[in-house]
């Protein structure tokens, strides 16, 4: 039941990941995330005073601006803004800086499939770079469902368009902690089994969706290690950055 992918990858194989932080000079935090040919650049401007209208002033507010590679801003961009905003709201600790607004600007450099997961990963890294307090990190992945019921991970744009359905999933990062093992579990399951965000496009059955969840979870473990490795060595150089 092997499916042939155009770039010769296996079904479970992800594209080469690359992440670099602190690339923009003026932004408080910035990161770029590359998955194969999809590249997204995110800049974070740390807490500013005041919240937007209709937002709860007792909590910090996150504002996301999505800039496409080309074309006018339309409904697609608004939808992406809302999804990224809600995802980031669930990983940030919002009570620490009430009545402030943190701006996250997402710029799409190139779109070759799995754009939204790439943007969420980049936004996460940028928030770490800016020093915004987070509960845990988030790792996002995209799964595609072929007509035969086969699930492939990290599709390219061509694969996304030709497949029956696809789902993007955001899981919490696996936590390395000094605290004992048991205290990190939520209702008996490890924390990384939770789902922060899930979005689907196309018609898929419930079993297919649960399969996607399983595959996605397995893959995010690998992505978490890549992210952690990327973030760690740069912590020493961040100390010189002015807040």
């Amino acid at each position: 039941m092997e499916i042939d992918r155009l770039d010769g990858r296996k079904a479970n194989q992800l594209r080469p990941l690359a992440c670099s932080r602190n690339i923009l000079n003026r932004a408080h935090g910035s990161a770029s995330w590359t998955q194969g040919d999809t590249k997204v650049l995110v800049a974070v401007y740390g807490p500013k005073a005041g919240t937007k209208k209709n937002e709860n002033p007792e909590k910090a507010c996150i504002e996301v601006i999505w800039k496409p590679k080309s074309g006018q801003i339309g409904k697609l961009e608004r939808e992406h803004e809302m999804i990224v905003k809600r995802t980031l709201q669930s990983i940030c600790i919002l009570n620490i800086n009430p009545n402030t607004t943190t701006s996250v600007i997402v710029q799409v450099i190139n779109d070759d499939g799995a754009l939204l997961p790439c943007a969420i990963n980049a936004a996460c890294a940028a928030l770490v770079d800016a020093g915004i307090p987070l509960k845990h990190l988030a790792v996002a992945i995209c799964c595609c469902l072929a007509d035969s019921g086969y699930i492939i991970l990290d599709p390219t744009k061509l694969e996304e368009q030709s497949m029956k359905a696809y789902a993007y999933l955001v899981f919490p990062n696996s936590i390395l902690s000094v605290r004992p093992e048991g205290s990190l579990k939520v209702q008996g399951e490890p924390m990384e089994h939770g789902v922060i965000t899930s979005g689907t496009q196309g018609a898929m059955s419930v079993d297919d969706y649960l399969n996607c969840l399983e595959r996605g979870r397995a893959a995010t473990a690998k992505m978490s290690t890549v992210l952690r490795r990327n973030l760690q060595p740069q912590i020493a150089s961040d100390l010189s950055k002015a807040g």
Partner: protein
Amino acid sequence: MGLPDAPGDLSSEVDVDAFRRLFPLRFYERHLTESIRPDGRPLGRARDTTIALGAVTSAEGSALAKIGSTTMLAAIKMEVMTPSMDSPDEGCIAIDFHMPPICSPIVRPGRPAEIAPVVSKQLSDTISSSGMINLKELSLVSGKAAWMAYLDIYCLDADGALFDAALLSAVAAFSHCGPVLAYTSAIQDCVALTRQRMKELQKILDEANSAIAVLMEGGDSLLDAIYEEDNLEGIDDVEMLDVEEGEVVEPNLHNEKGKSSGGDVNLEIQGSQSKNRGLRARKKKNRRKKGGSRPVTDINRFVLDTCRRLKERKSYMLYTAVGCLGVSALNDLVKEVHIPFNLLPSAV
């Protein structure tokens, strides 16, 4: 008693609504610990849902869906358009979701709500990617005509679960839309009727055109017959030529008379070999004779007749025209001009 209980003490004195706004977390916690929600529902129960089909009578399909207080009105309007090049035998659906200020106090005119474009995009994604509507059914004539369905959803009351209610109303409106094929056959009938009517009109026009063409050539036509019928004066053998000022005397008159009488004899000899030809020749001869033997009294009568026909009050102008052109030429001119006017629908 004591500080930690201070809000709890207040709750017995403070209005429920005020408590909900002042201490929202405690308010909801109080309910959720009992596995119940503020409106009395258990955790797993949805609000009462109602659907009313045909809410908008002017639209091809419409529905009003309510989930609790959340109200959505969906209406579908169908239009015929030319399909795009990439999909010549597929119709099109355009979905729009509006949140007018009526739906919520936080929506103001001129500033669209934040969730409106998101719900709109999610709706169009869901409807198109689920394969709910087969676009090929919307095609009328491949490559030339196809249905375009405009689906507009208006949120009349935003009280949560917006996407659910919007999708419900959209699906209900599509189900109410009725068979599109009925419209197709009605349009085809109209097209057939129009084609038939056009053929009839074309025939009438062709007849009129040919009549005018013949008239212009100076040949015989049914118009001549009409003219002949109108003037029942007998053939006037007596010729009285009164040369009036400016009147053109037809020089060939005497000769024609001689010829025509000869021709007459000839025709009579030939007899019924070609009735039509005979009739035509006689008509020609009669016309010439009439033209030539127009006495003075006839000019007056002719001018009066023509004035009446043309609705021209200034008869002196006609006298001048007769003087310049002669009666027969003027007669021909008037006939040429007047007949097409009769054929056209009288707008005067």
